[in-house]
């Protein structure tokens, strides 16, 4: 076991945290190549869809929303890992957040980039997506600002802009330090990104003030973004979508899956980069407790949502409720309950079982469960039609499955490249302060 970070001198901390930036191992190249190949395959599939038309996807009457919308909601949910968690912990001045925040903030930016692509993929004719942007076109027509699609555009653009700035600002002191030690193109890159940072008190004061304000604003934006995504559904008068609790229900689910994603990334980073001394069991324990809390909150919301429908006994709602819990989709529904509640409750609720390994296993289960939850929300409502003349189900095609797989590969790829360029643990924030760190 490596020494605890609080007794390691600063030079050692910096050396340890910068170590992964130097050199490229064979294993790294192999993993990057594999992820790149899968990502390129996904891009090829998208290109195929653009050429052949949206018909190559499994979405057709009456199920017009399939994997793409499921993935959109899922990835936007994952994006809540970073900014929200980091912002909450920053505002509450939780000192244990320091090694965790950058890893989390990077997840946010990459997940948003991936999630934000899905509405464009789903459009089919992706090349005219800019019609959503308000600009004075030749017929003096403007986008419909009352459309939830435009809400998504503004919400996600704001969140992506804010998250990128929120990731970038605390990176500046680190890249300034790196610029002093790097050579070649890396030096030029770091110098450019450091914006001429000198480490003066004016700069530190401005950075601290800006980060506090950003944390407060990004928190409000993060909550609104997933609420807006929920409203995409609840604004439709459709069974089991038209619900007032969908906003908070989605936000809870997003934070839940975000924490799970963060735990998985931290676990991989800890192992692959040998950060055992910096990402300690203490950090995993705290995040595992948060995950357990969110699991219970998720259960509460799910129960409230389903109980209201069941008790109301409205026929159209009950049809959807029936296929979800007893019919075609019941296998997904009960797997979701098992993954989102049973697994975390057993592995994290029993103190004796709680460890880094079990927290990672529970997180993987939660991600599977949350993806299934999105599927359960999106597909059954459309598959159970309200007109007897319309029927049809949904089964994803190889194009949709390939694109979905590619997004996971893209996430891994972006993360690997980022962690090779920038320290994944904030060095300047990780000063060895024994009292604080403990």
């Amino acid at each position, binding site marked *: 076991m490596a020494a605890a970070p609080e007794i390691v001198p600063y030079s050692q901390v910096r050396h340890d945290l910068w170590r992964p930036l130097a050199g490229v191992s064979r294993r790294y190249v192999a993993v990057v190549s594999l992820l790149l190949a899968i990502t390129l395959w996904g891009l090829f599939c998208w290109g195929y869809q653009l050429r052949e038309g949206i018909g190559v996807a499994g979405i057709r009457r009456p199920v017009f929303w399939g994997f793409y919308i499921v993935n959109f909601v899922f990835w936007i949910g994952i994006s809540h890992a970073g900014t929200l968690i980091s912002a909450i912990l920053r505002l509450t001045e939780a000192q244990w957040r320091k090694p965790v925040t950058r890893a989390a903030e990077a997840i946010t930016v990459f997940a948003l980039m991936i999630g934000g692509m899905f509405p464009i993929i789903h459009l089919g004719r992706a090349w005219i997506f800019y019609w959503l942007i308000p600009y004075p076109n030749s017929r003096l027509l403007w986008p419909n600002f009352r459309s939830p699609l435009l809400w998504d555009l503004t919400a996600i653009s704001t969140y992506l802009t804010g998250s990128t700035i929120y990731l970038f600002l605390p990176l500046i002191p680190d890249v300034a330090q790196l610029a002093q030690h790097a050579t070649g193109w890396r030096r030029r890159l770091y110098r450019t990104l450091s914006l001429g940072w000198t480490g003066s008190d004016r700069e530190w004061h401005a950075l601290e003030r800006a980060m506090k*304000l950003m944390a407060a604003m990004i928190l409000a934006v993060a909550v609104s973004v997933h609420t807006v995504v929920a409203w995409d559904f609840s604004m439709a008068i459709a069974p089991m979508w038209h619900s007032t609790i969908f906003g908070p229900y989605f936000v809870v689910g997003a934070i839940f899956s975000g924490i799970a994603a963060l735990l998985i990334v931290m676990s991989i980073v800890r192992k692959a980069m040998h950060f055992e001394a910096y990402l300690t069991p203490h950090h995993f324990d705290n995040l595992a407790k948060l995950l357990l809390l969110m699991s219970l909150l998720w259960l509460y919301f799910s129960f409230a949502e389903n109980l209201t429908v069941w008790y109301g006994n409205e026929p159209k709602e009950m049809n959807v409720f029936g296929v979800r819990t007893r019919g075609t989709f019941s296998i997904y529904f009960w797997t979701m309950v098992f993954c989102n509640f049973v697994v975390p409750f057993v592995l994290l609720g029993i103190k004796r079982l709680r460890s880094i390994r079990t927290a990672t296993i529970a997180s993987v289960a939660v991600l599977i469960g949350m993806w299934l939850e999105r599927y359960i929300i999106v597909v059954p409502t459309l598959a159970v039609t309200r007109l007897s003349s319309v029927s049809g189900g949904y089964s994803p095609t190889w194009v949709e499955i390939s694109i979905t797989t590619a997004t996971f590969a893209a996430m891994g790829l972006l993360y690997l490249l980022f962690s090779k360029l920038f320290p994944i643990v904030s060095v300047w924030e990780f000063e060895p302060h024994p009292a604080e760190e403990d």
Partner: protein
Amino acid sequence: MYLKGDFQDRSSAIRALRELQADGFHAADIDVFSDEPLELPRGVLDRPSRMSFTVVTGAVTLCLLTIGFVYFTQYNYQLRTGGMPIFSFWATGVIFYELTMLGGILTTLACFLWESGLFRRKRRIPVPVVVPGIISIRIHCTENQLEEASRCLDRAGANQVGTIGEPR
């Protein structure tokens, strides 16, 4: 002319700052360089900031611009609605909210660049190299003040005191 003093701990740096300010050096002429944020007690090198106010102003400004823009575009195309209102506050409220926040976020970035001085850096001013664990104090002074400033830094326990003139 710029004078620099290096300190190994925070308390002696604070002592030096107090002595400098007591001897009449202005906060605007003093800069502290460190590799981590330095917590200074109130009254020592206070840096007044208008960031919060400016951010709120920026947010409100973009909100108002958005309301105006959406209002204009909704009425730009003459639709026959039978007297029903076109401009909907409820349905466009989400967009107003998001762009209000965007205004705040972008103003924060602008304020950070301005208040930190990164946006208006003067190349001529020499910057001490930040060594991990060392706190450097830089004072802008005249030749007459040089001796007094050096004495302040020495008395507070500076490791090394000297003039710096080469821009970094």
